[in-house]
């Protein structure tokens, strides 16, 4: 099976290896439910930690959008590359990065995946080919195209997954990148997380043509929309797109329609959205949706849920404790990594 990425499998293995937990084989759906819940609970704890001033700076949460990271990452192999945005906790966790690496980073500690140099918006993991963590809207797209160019020139079979929001579709870099990728038939998949708002500006107030897939298609690539609130729909679309790109037919574009339940960043007054609209989208929360579905199918019990929550809570507590205890990067190392260090091997 190539459908389960190794990093994700690693994360899964951690749970499975825990005595007493792995009582029976898990279905893919069950794992996806657990992965989404894991992201949700993690971010909820981030809110608390932010309020307690443990986390500072900008903190962008993907609560409500968890189906996308979980679904997309499942469609990738270890050797594929991921280029993400500043709302990337979910992507990072689903790609297999540990909570400890993320929380350490948000705490500004040495144990963080970027040694405290990046923070919430700049999560990186070379081992998992996770290229960040880009906080310039649209800025990651040309890089993803270049990564895909390298894959193509090196003759690999790898694909680059490029995630970005609807706001990036207004950036010139989207259009330059889409054109270049299509022109050169590069193996890149553009995953547009359309949560209807570019910060506080709604899609309709920002785009003359709000059918984003239609616009992407104009560059000569396959493009279609999918329900970003349904993890099964996401994973299905992502697999199709990734296989298409891997086949050498060039880039494709998937518009994943989703919604964030919380503000753009922490303590955003959220005056630009109708409360009713938020409530309406909450009814489509991907986690309860999948939960109900699995219950209905008889493959999920209350005990399972309790167990999932307990596992996640333990993982979070452990990560928080680790991050608290972790040393800070020495100030003496402030200027490290401005240029490469000779001893460093990649």
């Amino acid at each position, binding site marked *: 099976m190539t459908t389960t990425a190794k990093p994700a499998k690693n994360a899964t293995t951690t749970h499975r290896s825990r005595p007493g937990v792995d009582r029976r084989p898990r279905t893919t759906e069950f794992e996806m439910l657990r992965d989404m819940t894991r992201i949700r609970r993690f971010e909820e704890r981030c809110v608390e930690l932010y309020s307690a001033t443990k986390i500072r700076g900008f903190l962008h949460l993907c609560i409500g959008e968890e189906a996308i990271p979980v679904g997309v990452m499942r469609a990738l192999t270890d050797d594929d*590359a991921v*280029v993400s945005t500043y709302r990337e906790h979910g992507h990072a966790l689903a790609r297999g990065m540990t909570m400890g690496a993320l929380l350490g980073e948000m705490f500004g500690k040495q144990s963080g995946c970027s040694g405290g140099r990046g923070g919430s918006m700049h999560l990186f993991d070379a081992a998992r080919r996770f290229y960040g963590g880009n906080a310039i809207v649209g800025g990651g797209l040309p*890089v993803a195209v270049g*990564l895909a*160019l390298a894959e193509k020139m090196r003759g690999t079979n790898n694909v680059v997954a490029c995630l970005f929001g609807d706001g990036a579709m207004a950036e010139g870099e989207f259009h*330059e990148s889409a054109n270049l990728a299509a022109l050169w038939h590069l193996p890149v998949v553009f995953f547009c997380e359309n949560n209807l708002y570019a910060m506080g500006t709604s899609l309709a107030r920002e785009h003359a043509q709000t059918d984003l897939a239609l616009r992407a298609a104009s560059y000569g690539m396959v493009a279609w929309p999918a329900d970003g609130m349904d993890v099964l729909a996401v994973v299905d679309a992502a697999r199709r797109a990734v296989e298409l790109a891997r086949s050498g037919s060039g880039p494709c574009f998937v518009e994943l329609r989703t919604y964030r339940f919380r503000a753009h960043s922490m303590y955003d007054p959220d005056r630009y959205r109708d409360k009713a609209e938020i409530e309406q989208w909450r009814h489509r929360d991907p986690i309860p949706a999948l939960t109900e579905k699995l219950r209905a199918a008889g493959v999920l019990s209350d005990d399972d849920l309790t167990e999932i929550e307990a596992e996640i809570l333990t993982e979070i507590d452990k990560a928080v404790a680790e991050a608290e205890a972790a040393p800070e990067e020495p100030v003496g190392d402030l200027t490290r990594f401005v240029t490469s260090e000779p001893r460093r091997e990649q």
Partner: protein
Amino acid sequence: MTAQATAQVELTYREAMREAMREAMTRDERVFLMGEDVGRYGGCFAVSMGLLEEFGPERVRDTPLSESGFVGAGIGAALGGMRPIVEIMTVNFSLLALDQILNNAATLLHMSNGQFNVPLVIRMTTGAGRQLAAQHSHSLEGWYAHIPGLRILAPATIADARGMLWPALEDPDPVLIFEHGTLYNVSGPPPDPSISVDITSAAVRRAGRDVTIVTYGGTLSKALDAADELSAGGVEAEVIDLRVLRPLDDATLLESVTRTHRVVIVDEGWRSGSLSAEISARLVEHAFYDLDAPIERVCSAEVPMPYALHLEQAALPQQADVVAAVMRTVDSRA
């Protein structure tokens, strides 16, 4: 090839750069060239003429007019294991890619705690003197020299044009090479390929005891001419070619200035907030007690570069300006 045919006699700066690219692509399969019209057209300034035929369209890639897109793609390709050479037609156009150069190329290594380095080389034309007016003629390399994480090169000689590219490609981090537009047709004897060229130090192009003229790129020849003129009047100017605009070779500058005690900085960039300002500040910081006269700067007039020849020349640093500035540092009332 044309360049090979003439290599035994004289080499132009353009040919030297082309030779350097040819050598790099021959030596390392990961090296490829991309940019606007680098392939079929042969390069806006004909630098890459013939390379498409030699290396094919995969490795000599014409790009659409999307500076941010193809510079970002260069970054991505570098991250992905390639060694791209990205050509941008002029420094003015590079501003369209400034986001990629600053926010990604220069930043990724640090932001990722050393996980992702960007072994990318970006070449571009800079400078005025060809009546290309205000959107093709500026000298903005000083801006780039402001950015930590980048190495900024300004080859001013045939030897440097020929020799700087390879070490730039070997650098694990992004390197920007600024080629002054007036240099392409300058010719000289082909450099000895056995002499390695570094991308770390400034070069003393002319020794002198009375004043240090600091310059780089397109103004080097003006500075050298000025030094000759001054020599006839009894003033021996030392001329330093910075070569590397970032990181600056402070040691060479300080060594010279502590001997001559007088400094004239010639920089085709605008004076305000310029590279010349940075050098001036460093010399004041580190050689204050060795300065025997105020530091003089010869920069471009603070106007967008005009088209008309006489206006353009009036806006640019000239030999006479350099001579006058030197004289202000060594002149006395008596």
